[in-house]
């Protein structure tokens, strides 16, 4: 019960996070990776630690590689750098590597080199948008399917006017989804501005996985609410809607939290000890999973009660 009755607090917390996320997105936008905007990224490491970012900038500037950025990779024994440039052709790449060897005085190992043409980047944006649209479509169909049995208004509420018809469950499920996707996107917008974290195709993948994860979380709770409404009706009970929702949340909260916990354990292991290539992916997923669990317990179900209250006031 306490969760539902304290719903204003949860709304405020989510509201602040959503406004912050939107604000960050509007002000800073997203820092797109080369997957999306094209360009080259090169990671080199030297055999000693005598090379500085300034040194790298000095040897690269005369090469006319356009605007480029050099970011040191932290490691005490060796100087390492991640260098981002415009898309480099084969010959540009060789010239850059030669320059990075400081006329043969330093030995640089190229850990990786990645180059994406601008057209391929546009295609990646297009495909990502399509994937998002399709996943959303599947989810909306999934919601429609999950709630197909409820054609009558769910809760006559013992003669009072308050009603929550089935389409409202759908709308709330979608509001929860927007919440779950906006928050990680906002965090990445902030990280992009402050830490230079990039948004790539893996980030989009993470968002889509979060969508699937959190819609299911929400539907498990809603299913339980409907089960209780049915039982209540059969028993000619007159429990207030708020109480029914509260009971349902209490019953499913164990499952919601535990599933998220096991998933989070896996993701945290991946973030802290897994490969660097998937670190940001694990972070995006973790934020999304937390937001998804939070929204299904603290936002979606309380919103049902709020909607019912609005309905009965009119």
């Amino acid at each position, binding site marked *: 019960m306490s969760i539902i009755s304290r719903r204003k607090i949860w709304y405020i917390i989510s509201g602040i996070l959503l406004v912050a996320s939107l604000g960050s997105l509007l002000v800073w936008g997203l820092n797109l990776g080369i997957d999306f905007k094209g360009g080259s990224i090169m990671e080199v490491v030297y055999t000693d630690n005598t090379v500085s970012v300034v040194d790298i900038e000095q040897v690269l500037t005369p090469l006319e590689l356009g605007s480029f950025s050099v970011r040191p990779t932290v490691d005490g024994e060796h100087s390492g750098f991640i260098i981002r440039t415009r898309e480099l052709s084969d010959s540009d790449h060789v010239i850059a590597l030669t320059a990075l060897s400081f006329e043969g005085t330093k030995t640089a190992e190229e*850990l990786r080199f990645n180059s994406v043409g601008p057209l391929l980047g546009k295609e*990646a944006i297009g495909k990502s948008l399509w994937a998002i649209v399709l996943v959303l479509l599947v989810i909306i169909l999934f919601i429609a399917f999950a709630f197909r049995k409820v054609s009558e208004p769910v809760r006559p509420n013992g003669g009072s006017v308050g009603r929550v018809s089935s389409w409202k469950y759908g709308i709330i499920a979608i509001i929860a989804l927007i919440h779950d996707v906006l928050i990680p996107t906002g965090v990445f917008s902030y990280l992009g501005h402050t830490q230079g974290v990039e948004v790539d195709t893996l980030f989009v993948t993470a968002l889509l996985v979060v969508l699937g994860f959190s819609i299911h979380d929400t539907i498990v709770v809603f299913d339980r609410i409907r089960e209780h409404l049915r039982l209540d009706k059969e028993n000619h009970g007159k429990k207030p809607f708020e109480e029914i929702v509260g009971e349902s949340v209490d019953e499913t909260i164990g499952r919601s939290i535990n599933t998220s916990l096991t998933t989070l354990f*896996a993701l945290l292991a991946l973030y802290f000890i897994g490969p660097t290539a998937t670190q940001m992916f694990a972070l995006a997923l973790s934020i999304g999973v937390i937001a998804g669990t939070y929204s299904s317990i603290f936002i979606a179900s309380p919103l049902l009660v709020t909607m019912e209250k609005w309905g009965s006031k009119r």
Partner: protein
Amino acid sequence: MWKYRLGAIGLIILAVLVGYFVYSTELGDSKHAFKLGLDLRSGSHLVYRADTASLDSADVEGAMTSLREVIERRVNLFGVSEPIVQVEQGGVLGGGENRLIVELPGVTDLNEATALIGATPLLEFKLVRPEMEKLSDEELKTKTLGEVFVSTELTGRFLQEAQLQFDSNTTGEAAVLIDFNKEGSDLFAKITKENVGHVLAIFLDGVPISSPVIRQEITGGSAVISGGFTPTEARDLVRNLNYGALPVAISLISTQTVGATLGDQATDAGVKAGIWSLIIIAAFLVLWYRLPGLLASIALVAYVALNLAIFKLIPVTLTAAGIAGFILSLGMAVDANILIFERMKEELRKGRVLHDAMREGFARAWLSIRDSNISSILTAIILFYFATTPIVRGFALVFIIGVGTSMFTAITFSRTLLYAMQMKEGKIGRFLFGSGVLNAASDYSTKR
């Protein structure tokens, strides 16, 4: 009861055998060793755009197939182990581009790799447009190649063999004699028959190197390229042509190279993260759900063995993202168990005996598990088809397999184990099936 006990023993033996298969195939050279993607073992991934604009849409597929074969031959010749050469369609979003993807494991010198592929000659035969033949040489100089020449279907695709030849009667100049295959000979005969008296230019790598005039129909299926070669140039050209000539021009649009250090680090880190997440999840399940949690952990280990075996048998090329997908699926695979156990506890609280509570738990949680897995699989399928990078595709594939396998291990496997534990009604039984760290009082639902 004995039925379940036998079933449980059978399943465990099966899981151990599967685990042994996974382990033993990692020792020494087995054809079932894990296939690691380039980001885990170093190598280059190159994407080429094939210029098929001048081809009839009906010919594109054939041209792309022969392009793939030519590049494959060339890459094999270079001694790269297990290279991958495949054709890909950019689809509507990629402007319908035809692409060639080349993966060269172990080759981290990008220049070496592109030079290797770039040395493949592009051989084309082009006719001069009729209106251009009237122009004088000076006027022709102002025109572009595209304005003067029109492509024919005849390309390096139909080449059978090239030979070095020296012009015997005059200067002794080096020339290259090429023989077409049957299809090429017919095309060549047709073109020469229809264009007697006209110029049929031979283009090498987009540059016209000789422009002989057709005197009569040529049915023998061979032609001579004499472009003022030095003997060395001619010899190189013969060699390159014999390894295969490109049917269409290609240009590099994306490259990805991973050095050996980074690859090894990523593999180590991925394996470590996997082991740790397995340990943490199992510990959590045992502490929180006690006996069922222990059984679910055993089922989870079986899940790992089964999945790894499937990765080996299909085989799935594992990438860093694929490993991430697998680790994520570990966390999600136990969702089914958690749903079942929570439901079981509820049934116990309603006053059912253990045995009935177990059955009810499995039966009632099923719908929820099914819905969740369907939505996960659909998401993964969409991801797989809209993946622009091999990274995302690797993730999606592993994820689909993981969700599928988890349906078996988290439901069938753990149910059989659970039913096999004949539990007498009583304090110990209730404790073992309860949950929470201390006792049932720490259960969420009883806090109300």
